[in-house]
């Protein structure tokens, strides 16, 4: 695991463009489609957008607003009859180098400048109270934040086998533990449950990988009293020093808060996701 405790994190940035495409197909004509999209990158100290756009086919009326967690939500309404809805989100972005270094601190009595209630409490797919014993066992003698997060992240990475098709988008954290397998989303849910059981504020992040086109990815962010939200990835075994690996899309308590497309449609038919493709093009900056 690439944990640079207390030392400088890699001072590299990134400039480029992103593209996120998704297509839904329906068994019969849809008269109206009303959806909440979380497909526009989430801006923070590390991530900046230089223009963004979302195109849908058929075209849609929309509003944009920030949800409780600062994600940009685009609410669309399609009123043209359709059997297929395609959504393309694209734009330009820059990643700033991480500030660092981030000294390790005791987990006990951490004080934060923001409200962390949601990131310590049970959420739809994560019930920390079912994971307390295991969390304490993994943490062992560690009393410090970064060290503890590192142990949990490493444990989930090593003990949950990466395997597609064994879970759904609604598999809960404790079920992932029981199954012993899953995808990035499942590993994140389990890690969140273990961290929250130890009273470490942590949240779910969905992202596009800058180095690998295809599906979206998920990782954990934990809150550091001085450094803010820092990455921990139980799939890729990354701790803090993520460099320019991720373009963050949305953050939340768990997957249910960051789902890229959620909504309702008016039709006698049923709908199904038929394609997702995410891609970044660009270069590192130094």
């Amino acid at each position: 695991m690439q944990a640079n405790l207390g030392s400088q994190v890699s001072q590299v940035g990134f400039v480029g463009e992103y593209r996120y495409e998704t297509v839904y197909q329906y068994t019969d004509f849809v008269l109206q489609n009303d959806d909440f999209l979380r497909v526009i990158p989430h801006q923070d100290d590390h991530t900046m957008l230089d223009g963004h756009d979302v195109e849908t086919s058929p075209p849609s009326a929309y509003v944009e607003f920030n949800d409780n967690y600062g994600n940009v939500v685009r609410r669309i309404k399609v009123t043209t009859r359709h059997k297929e809805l395609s959504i393309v989100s694209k734009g330009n972005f820059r990643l700033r180098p991480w500030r660092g270094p981030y000294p390790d601190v005791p987990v006990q009595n951490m004080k934060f400048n923001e409200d962390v209630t949601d990131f310590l409490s049970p959420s739809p797919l994560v019930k920390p109270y079912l994971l307390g014993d295991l969390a304490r066992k993994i943490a062992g003698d560690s009393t410090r934040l970064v060290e503890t997060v590192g142990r949990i992240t490493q444990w989930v990475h090593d003990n949950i086998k990466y395997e597609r098709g064994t879970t759904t988008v609604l598999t809960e954290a404790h079920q992932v533990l029981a199954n012993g397998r899953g995808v990035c989303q499942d590993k994140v849910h389990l890690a969140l449950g273990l961290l929250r059981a130890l009273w470490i504020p942590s949240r779910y992040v969905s992202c596009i990988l800058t180095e690998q086109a295809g599906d979206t990815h998920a990782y954990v962010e934990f809150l550091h009293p001085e450094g803010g939200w820092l990455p921990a990835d139980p799939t890729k075994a990354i701790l803090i020093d993520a460099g320019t690996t991720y373009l963050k899309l949305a953050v939340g308590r768990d997957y249910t808060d960051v789902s890229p497309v959620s909504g309702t449609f008016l039709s006698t038919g049923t709908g199904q996701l038929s394609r997702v493709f995410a891609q970044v093009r660009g270069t590192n900056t130094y």
Partner: protein
Amino acid sequence: MIDAFDGLGVKEIRKRWTAANRQVELDSFTFRLDPHQWRAVPIDWVPRLITHEEWSRIAAGVEQRLRAINRFLLELYSGKQDVVPENVVYSCVNFNPDLQGVRPAKDVYAHIYGVDLVNLGNGDYVVLEDNLRIPSGISYQLKCRDLTDQVLPELKRSYSVMDYEIGNTYLRLFESLCNTHHPSCVILTDGSFGPAFFEHRYLSEILGIPLVEGSDLFIHKDGTVRARTVDGDIKVDLIYRRVEDLELFVSGLTEAYRQGKVALVNAMGTGVADDKLVYLWVPEMIRRYLGKEPILPNAKAYNLMDSKTRQFALQNIGNLVFKAREGYGGLGVYIMEDLDPARRKEMSQRIIDKPFAFIAQEPLDFSKHVVFNKQSGGLEERYIDLRVYAVQDGEGKVTVFPGGLTRVARANTRITNNSSGGLCKPTWVLR
């Protein structure tokens, strides 16, 4: 009033109650509970009396609320609204992104309004919720009033009660929204299987305008709305719609409306103001848009999107009432003190799953009124609320119909909606 009842005697009262409630059934004064069951609206004929002074305050408060709500809707759909937070208003199921920039006839969205009030004692009324989608029940108010005159003529003679009519007010409203003198209007119903069909038919009769179903309407190639009738197709200027998903009933209606080819009562998009979470900001709308303090305060309510408030609500779940944001007519109301621990736990999971889908309120200790118990022959006390109806026309005039509909909860509950099995009661405003 009690003296008047004592004068009649239990036997006579029982006889009159039975006759009147049979009349109610004969008039098909019913609502539908489920696909196989209609129920006559049970009425307790002991009138509720409201003093003139008390009513003046209620009427002024309702008018103020309706005006502020309309202004909010105008600002919202022209992109200028800044009273209600964006994540609240744009997450509302009934917000229509495709209606931005579309203005309704005469800039009025909220034409027909039903507001639920309770009296906390001493005439301190608070607002429980605003009904602006397709508020129903005004026919019950009228029917209740008219039948009471027959059931208890001697009582009516001893009081001076404020009179009112609704037919002309509705017709004036419709005309004020159209640019023609004698607009052609229809009432759009979801048909005889809908829960409020009695009301649709009753309004059609007293207004003298045809009752149509979705299949009777179509969009002509010039973009206007037409109705098929036995005398051929006629152009429709205004639809008093008693259905929600208009596009599902008449394909192309949204576009006809956007182009200003037809007026809709209530206007498309009004449903945002019916949202139980948006309700929290109505007092602020009154302050901002009218520059006045609200005459009728809200009942205390909690926004569960706020994480600390949500934790508080989850920790105090047994003492709260939860309401689904888009619920209406008593649907989606969960009174925790009536539920067992398993159901409470289920509720807290639903709140964790969808914190934006509910609000919480504290149960209120509101007023009771007597009802006549036919079995025992005595009077007994039950919780009551008050649904008041108001109309806002295209010239900016607001009419609040005196009295409203008093709804009585079943014994030992505080839910007063018809669909929950309560009674109605005539409501008299004294001059």
